[in-house]
């Protein structure tokens, strides 16, 4: 018996010892917003290129324009004016008197040094491709030398790069930047609110490692302690902010949820202020009367499509591609994952995007099993004995969704199908290398608010470069015409025509658009979600949100 007592005493002592560790500081301070965030790639403009990094960057830094959350239109922020007569040579004037957190001026040089860093090939930054439309991009990103000139036959070599600056960008004076593009691009200003075009302080460029952890921005929020990718960090409102979009909250604390984790349980205990329920918690969240009035819904312009390997039989036949699309009961599939989480798509550009919602897919995106069977028969029928393989990356509920799609096709057309689930890395390689042997999942979220962003980066570049093996002269012509258009409106209309040209070739079947479904705690108000840049796990515009004290 004495031993039991001894053990109990030891256990009690252990508990006491643990209790002593509990003196850590608290995190539910009054004016501090608690926000969830995923894993950030970089906090220096040009290096992030994903939603989570941009959510911090757009509040710690400030770009030439800011996207209005309601309309998505770019509004001048650091820029005084952005003008061009031919859409190829642009003049950007900056507002006077703005500074970085460290006191450096936000002038023409601040933007140019940032752009040159991102455009310089050997820096290998993720947003490098944003500058491919700029004059001088090729000089900074040369092709490798021919193989016979390599010293070691196994290691590719590159020609010396003689310049570190984009020849198409010059500072006219301290507050004026001139940009020369390779070809006219009427929607140039629409891109400028994205992180690739944000300014960079000289002190940041001099010590990038330090700047990654403790960014030197020019925005309304400022880090006082280094940000940690695994543990998050707090940015406080910068009291010397002189811009036009100041926040009302005192600070924002970002809590990190690594891949596979989500904020819902912490939202339910009040530790996170804005959060999206996962598929498993969705039903309960939506039906909770207490949560109903704290729910934010809206369109989410992320698009999921069923891509076709046009380089492979029988998918080289457009009627087969259309028939498969008509055989999918999109509404039925959405019910499998829970209504309200997705909306059926009827085009390649969602309605919430400038120039989107044209319904270019038309009858081929409507569920019509009989029409699908007729079209398939017209195309010569499904190849005897061949199984329809649907290639999917195995993440979240992809498998459930694509199984429902397969079932729907199988039922409508009476062909056998098989899912080919893959790891993300393998899936990427197969898609890029044109090794996919059947229709495959593909998704896209926008970088900026323009229908062009759903077309060129995904379907452009020629048959060898894109995942689909798609190439069309008519499409290329329309893209070129849009670039040369006189105004943004005209350009948008031409891009819509390019989308119609894409519909003629049908390289992919549009499936779903997303829907935003966020909930917020009682203590916050004026929760505005920018559909284009919101983080997937829950987000709000930090410059608008209010904390009721």
């Amino acid at each position, binding site marked *: 018996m004495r031993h039991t007592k001894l053990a109990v005493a030891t256990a009690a002592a252990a508990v006491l010892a643990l209790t002593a560790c509990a003196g850590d500081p608290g995190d539910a301070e009054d004016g501090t917003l608690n926000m969830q965030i995923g894993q950030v790639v970089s906090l220096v403009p040009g290096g992030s290129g994903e939603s989570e990094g941009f959510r911090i960057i757009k509040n710690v830094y400030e770009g030439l324009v800011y996207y209005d959350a309601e309309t998505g239109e770019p509004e001048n922020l650091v820029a005084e004016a952005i003008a061009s007569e031919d859409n190829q040579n642009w003049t950007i004037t900056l507002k006077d008197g703005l500074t970085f957190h460290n006191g450096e001026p936000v002038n023409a040089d601040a933007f140019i040094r940032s752009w040159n860093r991102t455009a310089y090939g050997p820096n290998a930054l993720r947003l490098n491709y944003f500058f491919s439309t700029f004059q001088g991009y090729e000089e900074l990103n040369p092709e490798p030398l021919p193989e016979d000139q390599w010293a070691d036959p196994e290691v*590719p070599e*590159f020609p010396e790069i003689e310049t570190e600056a984009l020849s198409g960008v010059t500072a006219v004076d301290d507050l004026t930047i001139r940009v020369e593009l390779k070809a006219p691009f009427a929607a140039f200003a629409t891109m400028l609110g994205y992180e690739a075009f944000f300014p960079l302080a000289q002190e940041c460029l001099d010590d990038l490692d330090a700047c990654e952890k403790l960014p030197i921005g020019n925005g309304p929020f400022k880090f006082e302690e280094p940000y940690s990718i695994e543990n998050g960090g707090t940015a406080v409102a910068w009291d010397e902010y002189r811009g036009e979009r100041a926040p009302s909250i005192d600070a924002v604390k970002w809590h990190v949820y690594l891949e596979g984790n989500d904020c819902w349980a*912490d939202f339910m205990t009040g530790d996170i202020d804005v959060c999206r329920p996962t598929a498993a918690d969705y039903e309960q969240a939506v039906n909770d009367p207490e949560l109903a009035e704290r729910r934010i819904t809206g369109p989410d312009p992320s698009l999921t499509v069923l891509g076709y390997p046009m380089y492979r039989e029988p998918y080289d036949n457009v009627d087969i591609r259309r028939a498969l699309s008509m055989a999918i009961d999109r509404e039925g599939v959405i019910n499998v994952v829970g209504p309200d989480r997705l909306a059926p798509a009827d085009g390649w550009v969602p309605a919430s995007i400038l120039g989107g919602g044209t319904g270019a897919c038309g009858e081929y995106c409507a569920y019509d099993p009989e029409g699908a069977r007729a079209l398939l028969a017209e195309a010569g029928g499904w190849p005897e004995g061949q199984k329809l393989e649907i290639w999917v990356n195995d993440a979240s509920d992809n498998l459930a969704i694509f199984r429902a799609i397969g079932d729907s096709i199988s039922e409508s057309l009476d062909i056998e199908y098989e899912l080919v689930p893959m790891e993300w890395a393998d899936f990427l390689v197969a898609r890029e290398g044109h090794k996919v042997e059947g229709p495959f999942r593909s998704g896209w979220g926008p970088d900026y608010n323009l229908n062009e962003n759903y077309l060129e980066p995904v379907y452009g570049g020629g048959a060898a470069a894109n995942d689909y093996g798609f190439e069309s002269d008519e499409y290329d012509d329309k893209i070129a015409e849009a670039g040369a258009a006189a105004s943004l409106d005209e350009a948008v209309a031409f891009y819509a025509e390019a989308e119609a040209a894409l519909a003629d070739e049908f390289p992919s079947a549009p499936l779903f658009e997303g829907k935003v479904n966020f909930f917020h705690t009682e203590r916050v108000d004026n929760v505005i979600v920018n559909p284009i840049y919101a983080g997937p796990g829950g987000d709000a515009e930090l410059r608008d949100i209010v904390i009721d004290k």
Partner: protein
Amino acid sequence: MGRYVIRRLLQALLTLFITLFLLHYLTALSVQIRGNPALLFFGGERTPDPAMLAQIERLYGLDNTCFDRPGDPCLGPFVERLQNYAAGDFGTTLNGNRDVGELLTIYIPNTLRLFIFSTITLVTLAMVLGTWAARRRGGLIDHSVRGATILIDSVPVFLILLAYVYILAVPLTNWARDIWGAESFMGQVFRPNYNPDYPWTTIIIPGIIVGTVGLATLTRLVRASQLENLGSDFVRTAKAKGLKTGRITVVHVVRNSMIPIVTGVGYTFAFALSGAVLTEGIMGIPGMGRMIFQAVQRQETNLIIVGLTVTAVVVILVTLVVDLLYAVLDPRIRYD
């Protein structure tokens, strides 16, 4: 003893070298068969410019053409890698360009904290329950202890974790905060997710849950070895000498029963890493288990090799310590 330790350390070095080579060979094979991980750098949705892709490959040492020949052991890159490691450079990750050495300083302490709590839980429970069952051999308590531990052990740890996170954690936290406040120890300890502001408090519950893995085995080990010693000659002699029960138990029974237990704990430590993958994944702890798991999924060659090497080092060291403890615990064991 000294010579024994040196011999063991030399063996350990050889094992490490073989481990490193095997890991290198397997990851090289993975790149050769699965294809180019440099694509991940671009996030995957966009088709990168070939010139940019070539730059990335060069940056990460994936440009060597041996990666295009399946089965090629890629000895050149291996030697380069060893040189870099020897110079203290563990390379960077493809996704996010993070310094691997720096990542280890974040991940290792979290996993260690998890292991501290799980080991304390496991050893305390197994010792208490095992001793109790040994004392009441054949009785109701003995049977109940054995039954209960088997029951706990046979429920998969992820099920316990999921049940905790999805059913218990939220109401428990809200209840505790109503009474003690959000900033108190009690207001934090039940939280469903790890929180870096409370690195010790919020890791206690996951630690306790991991500590139930292998509970039945260790409890039975404790029980069996104590039973064996209780009936041994030296305990009878000690009793005959008139020693006090307390002294007999501590010096003769418990100490001599420790050998199988120390072995068991050593092995559990190595196995706990697999438990850590699940626990760290479900409770959002940035630790070694989930790091290695995700590195394998994402083809993060550097992370896989460095991460698994660290665990290999730990396993080798723990085994060595266990072997040395034998000599301390059992006077009959001498190594020279």
